């Protein structure tokens, strides 16, 4: 019994010491939601600790301009423009022994962008479209739509809509795969939309389906050109050949060539 009481007292004191480090820093504001700009401040209340300096981190990386060796207990960092790039988890870190830090979350709408705005696929092959998201927090829900021709109505697509469609989603990326592309049905715009706790954003991807025979016409055209050129060259050669024969190249004329050679020998020997 006494042992049990001692152990629980020990645990309680440990918890209390742990809990007592947390309230040392007061953050203002504690969370930034959907603002265009903000000033993050941290106030270290426990003045018994010796502060050697401080800095801020963004998503785990130290912000170099915020590094300071000033032993201030009240530090701030201002965000002039909050975009998906500057959103995330900010930590104010006091260089004490041990270090104390606290997190301030800066949240924005998700930034959704298509990996490629124009995708190609071949008929009867598969077509893949992807959207990625940056920012904080990452979307928890992804939905794909097919945009109808009148550009207004959208048809939601999910894994069950059609056995040709497959959707794979992770918080920062979503992929729509169409397994057997058909020219009539699948050409057009697709919309991917991601939702997080603050709201929704979306982007469009244009899918083009190439016909299997599209490459055939240039191929046949160039082959025809080659055949024509080769024929022309051979015909030209056959028609020129009689001229060359008259120049004394035919084997029948070897007697005359030997005469030429004998003459030359005689000339040279006489020199």
């Amino acid at each position, binding site marked *: 019994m006494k042992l049990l009481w001692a152990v629980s007292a020990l645990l309680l004191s440990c918890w209390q010491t742990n809990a007592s480090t947390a309230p040392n820093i007061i953050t203002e504001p504690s969370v930034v939601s959907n603002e265009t700009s903000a000033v993050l401040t941290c106030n270290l209340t426990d003045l018994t600790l010796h502060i050697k300096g401080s800095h801020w981190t963004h998503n785990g990386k130290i912000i170099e301009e915020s590094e300071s060796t000033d032993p201030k207990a009240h530090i701030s960092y201002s965000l002039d423009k909050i975009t998906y790039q500057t959103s995330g988890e900010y930590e104010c870190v006091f260089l004490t022994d041990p270090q104390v830090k606290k997190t301030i979350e800066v949240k924005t709408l998700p930034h959704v962008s298509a990996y490629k705005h124009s995708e190609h696929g071949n008929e009867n092959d598969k077509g893949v479209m992807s959207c990625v998201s940056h920012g904080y927090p990452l979307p928890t829900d992804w939905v794909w739509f097919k945009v109808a021709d009148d550009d207004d109505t959208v048809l939601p697509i999910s894994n069950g809509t059609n056995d040709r469609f497959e959707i794979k989603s992770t918080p920062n990326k979503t992929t729509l795969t169409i397994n057997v592309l058909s020219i009539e049905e699948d050409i057009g715009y697709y919309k991917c939309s991601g939702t997080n706790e603050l709201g929704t954003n979306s982007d469009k991807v244009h899918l083009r389906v*190439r016909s299997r025979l599209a490459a055939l016409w240039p191929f046949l055209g*160039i082959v025809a050109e080659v055949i024509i050129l*080769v024929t022309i*060259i051979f015909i030209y*050669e056959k028609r020129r050949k009689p001229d*060359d024969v008259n120049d004394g190249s035919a084997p029948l004329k070897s007697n005359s060539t*030997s005469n030429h*050679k004998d003459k030359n020998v005689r000339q040279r*020997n006489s020199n």
Partner: protein
Amino acid sequence: MPPAAVTNLGYKPPDGGWGWAVVFAAFISIGFSYAFPKSLTIYFKEIQEYFSVSYSEIAWLSSVMLASMYAGGPISSILVNRYGSRPVVMVGGLMVSAAMVLSSFGTTIMHLYLCVGVIGGFGLAFNLQPALTIIGTYFQVKRPLANGLAMTGSPVVLFTLAPLNQFLLDSFGWRGSFLILGSIVLNCCVAGALMRPVNKLSHPEPDNDSEKYNGAAAEGAATEDSSTQPADPAPEEGQKERNGQSQASKFIDLSLFRHRGFVIYLTGNVVMFFAFFAPVVFLAPYAKHQGTDEYSAAFLLSIFALVDMFIRPITGLLGNHRWIRPKIQYFFSFAVSYNGVCHLLCPLASGYEGLVVYAVFFGLAFGMLSALLFEVLMDLVGAHRFSSAVGLVTIIECGPVLLGPPIAGALVDIFGDYKYMYYECGILMLVPGIFFFIMHYYNYKKLDEERRQSKTGEMGTSEEMTDQ
């Protein structure tokens, strides 16, 4: 004065006329042979994603194609010796075309290796050797210029194919593009059709002036002709000589390994080829490593290709000059050494401007070397044995060509710095360059001795004949 039986050709090459059409045809063939494997790299990313393979597996495609192209050299030589250039080039064009069309229906990466890599590579080999060989049969006096012009095909076709391939990829995907490339490559058959066999019997008189231009080839001619035919011009004997030579060179002429000039060329080239392609491959990555952006790095390659394109015909013209032609081997040695010096100085280039300067000088060096590469071989062994020579040379160079870039890459990985790779390339170029200078000095001296000996020998026999 007896006619000097030094022309190992047995006829006077046209040096013009239809020869220029043949140069154009060779331009196309050589251009496709060298530029096609390099330009296919544009499709790698899409094919890699389609078949879900790693980058090194897809890079093998280029290597297999290049390896087949070099390994097919001897086979190509045998066929050219037997049938002449024209049929071989046309068959080669058909092979590459069929390979590309088949591969556009491929379902696995193995398909691509076999079709594009092996069959395509052999087809390109059947394009390269005959194109080089036929220039030697059509040109004697203007041969360096013809060679320089023909070798310009490589950068020009690469320059054209690269953006074209990108356009095809965007419009048709890789399958459609391969199909269309198959038809584009069929134009090699047109090039083959232009390669009319030279009319040997229309100019039977050997030319005394050609002694000047034969240079080192005179060695082979002097030993062959003096054994088969003294200064007797009878046409039957002349034909017998031609038949005798064609019997020997029906298959591949392995006696080349006893040819002094050939052995010099081969030894130097084997070492040099380790460092030949690596700097080109690593130019853009090195620039990016120095901090330039992707477009500027790619622009460096364009500068290099443009300079290369213009310097090749200019080198051909220079090689033709009466001061340089007789001692063209020295010009080649200079080109090799200059390459080496260029690479050794590259690490000193600082900033983007320094890299641009390097790219210009490297383009000059590379173009000079490429334009002369086969011209000097022709100069050494003569047009008759060139076909076999180039076949043997390409299959032996297969190793260094394939191993060069990976070794350079390994150096970069081990040291984390590109300068050691440039030092390695520089030394591997400079040493053969100096080797060539020394050995060719010795070779030229020997050739002059042999020529003087054979001349006095001929004078002796002709005096005997006139006495009779």
